[in-house]
């Protein structure tokens, strides 16, 4: 397939979309893992009852 002399605009649009959607997915995964780790740690401390990591 030849995209003609507007190839730069077409590929640029797809590249930007891929970048933004990729960023959204990556941020969602990293944010979720970070919150999960944080919650596990806090819940461990609450279960421990002392507020001090054993």
């Amino acid at each position, binding site marked *: *397939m*030849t*995209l*003609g002399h*507007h*190839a730069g*605009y*077409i590929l*640029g*649009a*797809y590249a*930007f*979309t891929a970048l*933004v*959607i990729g*960023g*959204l*997915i990556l941020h*969602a995964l990293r*944010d*979720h893992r970070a*919150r*999960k780790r*944080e*919650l596990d*740690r*806090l*819940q461990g*401390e*609450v279960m421990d009852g*002392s*507020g*001090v*990591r054993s």
Partner: protein
Amino acid sequence: MWTRLAHPGHFLRWTQPVMPWLAGLSGLLLGVGLYLTWFVVPPDYQQGETVRIMYIHVPAAWLGVFFYGAMAISAIGTLVWRHPLADVAQRAAAPIGAAFTLICLVTGSLWGKPMWGTYWVWDARLTSMLVLFLIYCGIIALWRTIEDPNRAARAIAILTLVGAVNLPIIKFSVNWWSTLHQPASIMRMGGSSIDPSMLYPLLAMILAFTILGVTLHLYAMRTEILRRRVRALTLREAERLDASPSSVRGASISQEPMGQAPIGRVVQSL
């Protein structure tokens, strides 16, 4: 049943097994949509190959408006029923809606330069989409300004409902004003004006983007619920430590570096 499903605890339980299926379906539909876009759709007789930008521009525009509509409905849920999941849904939708609106604006500009000879005109449709993006940014900024999510919820719900006035302006701008942007060509009286060879791949991409957006939204809602639980536990821990200062000061401001210590203890040590 709806109330039961919308309870944050139940929501976390029923969405957990659904997420991998939705993610797989999003990937599959995107693959099919992109295949149709690149290998089946013929070049447009006027736009040539540049028409392929429309297959990401139109779905992104739809999702930008769709997520704002979802936020407006959630805002009503927050203000009228004070349902905690409504606020969670609203907060999770804002960055996703903003991202798709940004995609719509940028891909529209990249299409406009070769077709209209300019990246931007202050056309009613373009301007109302830019206003939508700015409203999204304002809402996200306001959320970051107010630390307590319960206080933020009401203020943002009101702002969201005020901003919803922009949705019919976006939709009907091409009818109300003489715009450079073309009028509605998919949802219009008398049926679509697009040839089926281009319409069905476009609908496939709209469906793929919608499933992807919904998947991201549900995932972000799960994360938001976890964030609020972390906040609640941190506050409880801080209150508990405040209640018994002597036992803690002696016991545990600890050998840990500041960044690794529980926040309650950091608050106490400050």
